[in-house]
């Protein structure tokens, strides 16, 4: 069912503005829907679930009228700063353009997987939250809004409900920017969403726990968002060396803190914790290709993530600067980021205008390097070893937002037998987000994961099923290649666990380097196994 919700409704008193139910959602073939669990009474008592029955932020409603007023005032002060050169030089131009020139054509709507898969709920339209921002801005900060009010659209009341629902709404969008790619004007609702997240974080101190407190703050405190300290990192590397020896029958010494190396490789540290076979595969490949590389054990030097990318310019800059400083300390020639989309975009592209002066050390993503390894002939590959259906996920950050489209495809073509690699629908720059983008993959508080798995990842589930539709039989092992740590997190939690793709269809997921090592002539045992617990 479609729940009709206008912009004005955002302020209204209602237990749940858009009470989402699984019956509202688009179907995933072969998946038996399980109704959403009722919100636990103690959560309900404490936190605000009034947007759609879910909470990503665990916000507690203000207890007094004064507290509400203070909240409203803070919000307005923050909103003003978004349009201030001094406070927001980083994104002021795109923000003001996107505020002023949307022609309200709704073209962006159908591009959004969350809007579409939710059964086209009004509140999830890409432009719903941007329009709220505009309406509030107009009402409080523009002459025409003050004078003409509703006539020019400035008709949204600002109370705690508006603010909390809007805050929650900013965490119902993965900032995948698919909507922006279809806008005829160039308006970017994803940017508007990020700006709103920024306002909440930078002015009101409101951000999802997973991206802020146990994300970028923990990163700045311990050296990694996983909480992994330098000492723990060194232990992990030893474990990976043992693991490599077991897998390929010879020991590789993983270079750590090698001064003056050509490459400092920085992984998303989540790989060490959840998918150590990925850094292991990198080590095997770089070693076999004779590349001069190193990892860093310096705090911030072994963690590639940058959660500020999704919600806070200062947290973003702090992490990026510290990462580059770690590289400088080692005197490496360049930084290469492992298989992590947002980490790559953050340090290679966005930080290009933060890391100035002596911090401007060259930085790049790993996919072109992997392509070079394949095409240079430095390693011998036997494509027949990857003789199973494979499909490729295009991480939004690397593909739509950085234009890295062909290297991963060239690698796959070189290491798989003909007919095994198949594109999923909408492959390339118009691909859909995995559902874990913008921090969703690491946001696990309250009942948010239920929303994420059911709504945000649903389109990806449908895409994967479509790609493998001719071989869904579980007797055929299949591989969903996602060269991005966050996307793998979403694959694990949503595709495998929630939708049951592993058990039902024998689909496993993993990165690109695992497939490369699996095809290496010099590696006898299969590196990828459908028996292992991924």
């Amino acid at each position, binding site marked *: 069912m479609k729940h009709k919700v206008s912009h004005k409704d955002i302020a209204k008193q209602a237990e749940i503005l858009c009470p989402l139910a699984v019956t509202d959602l688009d179907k995933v073939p072969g998946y038996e829907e399980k109704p959403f669990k009722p919100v636990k009474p103690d959560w309900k008592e404490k936190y605000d679930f009034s947007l759609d029955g879910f909470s990503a932020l665990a916000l507690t409603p203000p207890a007094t009228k004064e507290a509400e007023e203070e909240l409203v005032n803070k919000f307005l002060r923050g909103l003003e700063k978004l349009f201030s050169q001094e406070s927001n030089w980083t994104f002021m131009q795109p923000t003001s353009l996107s505020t002023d020139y949307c022609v309200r054509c709704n073209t962006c709507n159908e591009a959004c997987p969350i809007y579409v898969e939710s059964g086209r709920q009004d509140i999830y339209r890409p432009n719903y939250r941007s329009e709220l921002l505009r309406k509030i801005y107009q009402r409080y900060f523009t002459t025409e809004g003050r004078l003409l009010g509703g006539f020019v659209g400035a008709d949204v009341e600002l109370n705690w409900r508006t603010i909390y629902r809007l805050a929650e709404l900013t965490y119902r969008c993965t900032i995948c920017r698919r909507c922006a790619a279809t806008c005829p004007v160039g308006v970017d609702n994803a940017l508007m969403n990020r700006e709103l997240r920024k306002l909440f974080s930078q*002015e009101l*101190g409101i951000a999802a726990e997973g991206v802020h407190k146990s994300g970028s703050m923990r990163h700045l405190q311990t050296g990694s968002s996983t909480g992994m300290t330098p000492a723990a990192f060194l232990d992990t590397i030893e474990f990976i060396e043992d693991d490599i020896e077991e897998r390929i029958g010879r020991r590789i010494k993983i270079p750590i803190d090698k001064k003056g190396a050509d490459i400092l490789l920085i992984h998303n540290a989540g790989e060490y914790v959840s998918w150590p076979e990925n850094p292991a595969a990198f080590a095997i490949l770089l070693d076999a290709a004779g590349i001069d590389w190193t990892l860093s054990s310096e705090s911030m030097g072994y963690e590639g993530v940058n959660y500020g990318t999704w919600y806070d310019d200062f947290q973003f800059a702090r992490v990026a600067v510290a990462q580059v400083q770690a590289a400088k300390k080692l005197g490496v020639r360049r930084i290469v980021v492992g298989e992590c989309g947002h980490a790559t975009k953050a340090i*290679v592209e966005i930080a290009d*205008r933060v890391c100035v*002066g002596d911090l401007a050390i060259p930085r790049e993503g790993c996919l072109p390097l992997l392509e070079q390894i394949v095409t240079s002939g430095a390693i011998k590959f036997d494509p027949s070893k990857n003789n199973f259906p494979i499909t490729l996920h295009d991480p939004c950050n690397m593909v739509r937002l950085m234009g890295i489209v062909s290297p991963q495809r060239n690698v796959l073509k070189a290491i798989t037998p003909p007919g095994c690699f198949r594109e999923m629908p909408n492959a390339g720059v118009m691909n859909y987000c995995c559902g874990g983008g913008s921090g969703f993959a690491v946001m696990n508080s309250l009942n948010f994961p239920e929303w994420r798995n059911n709504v945000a990842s649903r389109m990806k589930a449908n895409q994967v099923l479509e790609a493998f539709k001719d071989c869904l039989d579980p007797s055929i092992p299949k591989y969903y290649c996602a060269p991005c740590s966050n996307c793998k997190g979403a694959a694990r939690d949503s595709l495998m666990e929630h939708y049951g793709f592993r058990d039902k269809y024998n689909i496993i997921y993993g990165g690109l380097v695992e497939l490369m090592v699996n095809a290496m002539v010099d590696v006898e045992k299969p590196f990828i196994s459908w028996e292992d617990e991924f």
Partner: protein
Amino acid sequence: MGDTLSWLIAGPFMYLAVIVFVAATLKKVITIASMPRHLRWDLYPIAHEGPAGSAFQKVEFWKQPRHISLAHELAEMAEEILLLKRTFLYNRKMWNFSYPMHAGFYLIIGWIGLVKFGAIMELIGGLKISGASTVFWAQALNVVTVIAGAVGLVLGLYGCLGLLWMRYTDEDLKDYSSPITFLNLYLLIALFGIGLAAWLIEDPSFVLARGYAVSLYTFKPITLPPMMTLEVLLFGIFLIYLPFSRMLHFAAKYFFYHNIMWDDEPLVAGGSLEKMIGGYLHYKAQWAAPHLKSGDSWLEQATANPAKPKEDGK
């Protein structure tokens, strides 16, 4: 009284409208252009990178010469401007009306150019441009002008009426249509509709329009028949209103594409971009959240670590 009013509208008011339009549009454009360079926020494919695609696809991309293909950029721009490519691809229902409306505008802009050109030729050549002219080019100019004007008005009116119909009937669009949206459409409908009526009833060969253009060039404003006077009044109002409305998206679009989505300019050591950013780093950011220090410079805040364990381990 009627003549005086017509003279006032066709003369002084029109000059004022043009001045306001040019000045306000320039001011808006300059304001946008002088906003600080923002952090990179590319969206691919970037047209000027051409078939080679993103520089990030190459190993050590910073060593490669930057690939800029003006031809590819112009081709993409032409598709977007002339055909409304994105609307065609992603919102065909709206394109069916939006395209005729935009095409109507383009033709009317072309028509204004042709009328002005004709006026200048009349002034210089001392020859009347009309269907009755014995000079070939004058006759041809007359035909082209009539076609551009008439087709432009019809397409524009059709497109605007269609868009109005969509906004009234499409449930999804209703919520995104405030009274001002309707007002904009009604203004355009009046502009195209009355223009069409004026052409049919008062000036089928645009001889009067050309004469009016001559009068503006020579600063000798004339009076016009009622329908044309009303049309000129509406056009003047439209010109004055345009820079303050979201209809200025035609100019903003340039910045959306070139300054945001396609702004892949890399930072070069010692370059002007680096100097610019260096300046911004001294801005005082006023954000008030606990992990920030309101009033400190950007540089200070970007290098601070609010989570750093204290030296004493607490």
